[in-house]
């Protein structure tokens, strides 16, 4: 029963969010209704079946009860949005526009009793197509393509530099690496030899579906600590005194370093800005764990190696 209620809420909230985020659903519905109402006019049985399928599936997806049935069918491993895969939205949009322009705009070469020449007809159709593109432009991305942010690119460059260094020094094998999450993610996706302290499923819930691995409280604590101190990079560049208390507390603590080294971590990446806080703690941790520690400056990060 609880699962059913969960699906019901998903169907209701999901549709509301979908309508807000995906504004072009309005022209899809409009074109679909147009296509469906004109179906009798079509000679082609294929078109009748296509528009019939489109109108049925979209209606069923919009009605919460049937939308919920589709959600149950596609299983909980998919987000709400994927349920709309069952409606061929791009085909409906493109097919609808073409039908509208070629069939609804002057189909005969006669307007007001006068015979239209081919050029005039082509011009009217072109205007129709351009109007459709303009509507899509307004409802779509308005010319702004999705791009990786400058920060993401900077993290990728730094990760690449560290990865290359580790490869050159033959440090990748027998090393368990720990660092900011984006760097760990990049390094693991670009080298199969890197072994990480914890994986992306720690912070990316969708990745968690792939693995039944569960993390201990200490590992989750280490993750939180790492993100706090590495995320403080820009903060420390500006005003050290203005850093939140919890960041100071995190920097003052060496518990998590020790916990990580005890769990096999022998390579740690940290921003250079926090190295004044870290040097002594790294040495203390190494002493506690009976090993030595060395550091290498690589761009804006320091690679600490425990041997």
């Amino acid at each position, binding site marked *: 029963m609880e699962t059913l209620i969960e699906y019901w809420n998903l169907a209701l909230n999901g549709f509301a969010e979908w309508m807000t985020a995906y504004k072009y659903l309005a022209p899809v519905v409009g074109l679909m209704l147009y296509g469906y109402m004109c179906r009798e006019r079509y000679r082609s049985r294929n078109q009748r079946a296509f528009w019939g399928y489109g109108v049925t599936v979209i209606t069923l997806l919009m009605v919460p009860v049937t939308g919920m049935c589709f959600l149950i069918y596609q299983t909980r491993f998919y987000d709400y949005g994927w349920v709309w895969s069952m409606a061929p939205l791009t085909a409906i949009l493109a097919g609808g526009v073409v039908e509208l322009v070629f069939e609804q705009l002057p189909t005969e070469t006669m307007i007001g009793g006068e015979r239209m020449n081919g050029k005039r007809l082509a011009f009217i159709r072109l205007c129709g197509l351009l109007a459709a593109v303009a509507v899509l432009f307004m409802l*779509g991305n308005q010319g702004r393509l999705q791009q990786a942010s400058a920060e993401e690119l900077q993290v990728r460059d730094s990760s690449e530099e560290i990865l290359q260094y580790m490869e050159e020094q033959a440090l990748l094998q027998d090393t368990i690496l720990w660092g900011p999450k984006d760097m760990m993610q990049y390094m693991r996706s670009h080298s199969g030899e890197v072994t990480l302290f914890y994986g992306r499923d720690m912070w990316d819930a969708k990745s968690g579906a792939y693995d039944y691995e569960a993390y201990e409280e200490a590992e989750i604590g280490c993750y939180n600590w790492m993100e706090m101190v590495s995320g403080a990079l820009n903060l420390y560049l500006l005003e050290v005194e203005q850093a939140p208390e919890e960041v100071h507390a995190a920097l003052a603590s060496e518990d998590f370093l020790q916990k990580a080294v005890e769990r096999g971590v022998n390579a740690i990446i940290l921003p250079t800005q926090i190295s004044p806080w870290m040097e002594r703690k790294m040495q203390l941790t190494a002493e506690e764990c009976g090993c030595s520690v060395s550091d290498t400056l690589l761009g804006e990060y320091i690679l600490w190696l425990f041997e």
Partner: protein
Amino acid sequence: VLTEALWKNFLCGMIVITGLFACGHLAGIFLGMSVAGCSLMVLVLMAAAGILGLIILCRKWRQIFVGIGLHKGYRPEAARIVFWVLAISQIYYVFTADILVTAGDITLETVNSFLTTGEIYSVAPLTGKAMAAMPLRYKILCLPTVYTLLCRWFGAEPELIVNRVIPTMVLCMTYMSYYLLSTALFGAEEQSRKKRMWFLVMVAMIFWLCEGSVYLEGYGVLHAGWLGTTIRGCVLIPLCLYGALKRKWLVSVLCILAEACIVWTFWGFGVCAVVLAGVVLIDKGGDIRWKR
């Protein structure tokens, strides 16, 4: 002017090849075969399928290649030029743009794990540590093995194959699939050529203009062409619709099988099955009504 039959056979051939990769992948999972063993098995299967394909080609080449070439008095029309400009710009974009991080996508990590260890799922893709338990519904999907074997055969970096080559191929196959759908919607005759071409132009425009919408085909085809969900949405569903509308049942059934190999559905039969069932039911329902 390439024919409907050529694209249809090409796409069906690609689905069959995916099926062969799936056989190799399943052998790796259930028989514990190494990546090298899977590679050999897939190569043998592909050689056998290639011979069979050649025999079919020799017997039906007229049917497949009929109409290829330029017609007498052929003039490139506006729609065709616009379409090619849009398609080539998309190919360039897919091949050069910075890759966006897609939540939940672990393809590169998995391919790198396979290549490094030489085994299928012997280490956890996300950490490189010993494998815990991975759900079977995910383990049986064959795309990571497809990409691993391609990297192995061509000696290419996984990023090149997964993030560049495969999305470009998927983009091309997407347009083939939509072209086939356009022949089902508007007819394959010469008179409807304009409508077919403008349909493709509109599809290309929608890909560009609605690429920010994660669940619409444009996002997948431009930013994440290697994902199973993208291949399903952009290639398999239009192809399945084409098969269902034209009553080429084998094409639709191949799409359903291909979806089972590349996208997890647990106990659902997949989206292609719903599309096929929906179109057939509505078509039959329409038949009954028309007869009355």
